[in-house]
């Protein structure tokens, strides 16, 4: 197995990212709106010292949000490519089919990291965080991004068409984001929500990012975060690869033509 096909898939995704300026800009604007509008809005309900603290508290959460959206959307090109036929070009290539999933997830991780780096740069320029904190956030961001790509991979291999996109937004992205401790400390949540947060792998990414920012309360230990993120990602990617290698998943791709 050579790396050339993998590089081609990754290169295609990255060049699409830079070509779609609107996607890149919205990926920067969305977190800024959250940070400045929600951050200041909710912050205004808090008092003095806490106000500034909330903005700092939000930085890891907002960064995690960027990674989640970017990784997931990029992983979902597995479905998108099927819809528009390019998947056929990859399916007929002399590589094992699970490599298509792996390449797409590597691409998803990298596109998310590009966006995370741009966001961090913006935050540093705006003086919202220190450059050292930004650098400290990067390794945590990488693990979070892999975890999000793995979630995206799982969703993608089970979706038949991109028509399900709204469903995916409402039933996956929003719950995963809101029930993760990205916007509020987990410890203060009611018990039943606490359990949901604990089974959400994304929570551990958010928590690991919080560890990189001083004076932000965390909910789990660094070791717990890393172990959960790595184990979840490994298992999810294995399942996604296994499922994608089953041909019944691709029958619609070839059958649509025959049934016409």
């Amino acid at each position, binding site marked *: 197995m050579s790396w050339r096909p993998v590089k*081609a898939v990754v290169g*295609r995704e990255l060049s*699409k990212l830079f070509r779609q300026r609107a996607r890149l800009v919205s990926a920067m604007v969305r977190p800024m709106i959250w940070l400045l509008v929600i951050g200041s809005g909710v912050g205004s309900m808090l008092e003095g010292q806490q106000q500034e603290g909330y903005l700092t508290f939000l930085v890891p959460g907002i960064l995690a949000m960027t990674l989640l959206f970017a990784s997931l959307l990029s992983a979902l090109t597995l479905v998108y490519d099927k819809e*528009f036929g*390019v998947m056929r*070009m990859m399916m*007929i290539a*002399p590589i094992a089919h699970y490599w298509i999933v792996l390449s797409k997830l590597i691409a998803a991780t990298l596109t998310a990291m590009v966006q995370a780096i741009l966001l961090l740069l913006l935050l540093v320029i705006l003086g919202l965080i220190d450059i050292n904190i930004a650098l400290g956030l990067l390794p945590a961001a990488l693990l979070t991004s892999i975890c999000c790509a793995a979630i995206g991979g799982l969703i993608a291999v089970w979706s038949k068409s991109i028509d399900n996109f709204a469903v995916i937004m409402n039933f996956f992205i929003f719950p995963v984001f809101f029930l993760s401790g990205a916007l509020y400390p987990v410890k203060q949540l009611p018990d039943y929500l606490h359990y949901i947060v604990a089974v959400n792998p994304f929570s551990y990414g958010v928590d690991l990012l919080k560890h990189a920012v001083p004076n932000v309360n965390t909910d789990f230990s660094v070791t717990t975060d890393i172990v959960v993120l790595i184990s979840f990602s490994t298992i999810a990617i294995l399942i996604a690869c296994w499922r994608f290698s089953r041909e019944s998943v691709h*029958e619609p791709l070839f059958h649509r033509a025959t049934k016409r």
Partner: protein
Amino acid sequence: MLTAYVASDFAIKTRGLTKQYGQTVAVNELDLEIKIGQFYGLLGPNGAGKSTTIHMLTTMTTATSGEAWIADQLVSADPVVIRGTVGLVFQDSALDRTMTIDENLQFAAAMYNLPPQIADKRIDELLSVFGLQEKRNVKLLALSGGQRRAVDIARGVLHRPKVLFLDEPTIGLDLPNRRAIWRFVEQLRRNEGMTVFLTTHYLEEAAACDHVDFIQHGKLQQGGAPHELIEQLGAYVLEINTADPENIAAQLTPLFGDPIREDQQLSFKISASDFNFSELQKTLGDAVSSMQWRRPNLNDVYLWTFCSPEQGEAV
């Protein structure tokens, strides 16, 4: 024993190849032997099992039972090796419309692990066959249907496959584009000597094949070389339009055998090459509203294979 298969001059060989989707048998006990370098056509109506056959031979779907070999390699043994040996032009496009011809073909070449310099030369060569050098950096969206199909075919042969599968390559194209596509395929065959496996339901296009077979309801009906099949059918096809088909059929069946009947039209095969039609015309007289005789073609072979009175099927 199937696995103890020895090297041969067959590019494609199948034994009892079968595909079932639930209760439906899409392809039923297919036995094929296609020699290296042949231009082979698998013909049949929509849903007859043509695409399913191609998908089994190119590892896009696995057979329910039976075996297939491509260039002496067992298809089920190593799908990755088979995918490196074959080229497949799908019925639907496999290209990214938002990317240029060059980007699409470079991407496809990388999927085949071709180094960039070699890919570049190969793309150049293929685009010049298809007359698309000028359009190399044009997005697919801006191309005509025929040009896009040509790029799809170029994509299918980038890696110089031993066997090229073309699944309805001209479907949805107008006549000039269809002709252009066939010129390209002919040129590719000449330049590279690859075996070509074609499915189509434009039968006149299959006349250039070395061998054609017919398939219906997943069952193969042995065919042969198109010109031989046409010769075997008879010297002429006689078509008669009449208000009273029963009577005419009763009159002529003893002479020519059972006709194919479509409403008020009867078609007969006539084997005698010196048959006297003007005599027949006089005999039938006013009973027919029109009558014409012509040399048979592949369409007639197809009709007589699938709709002949012996088959007991309506047209």
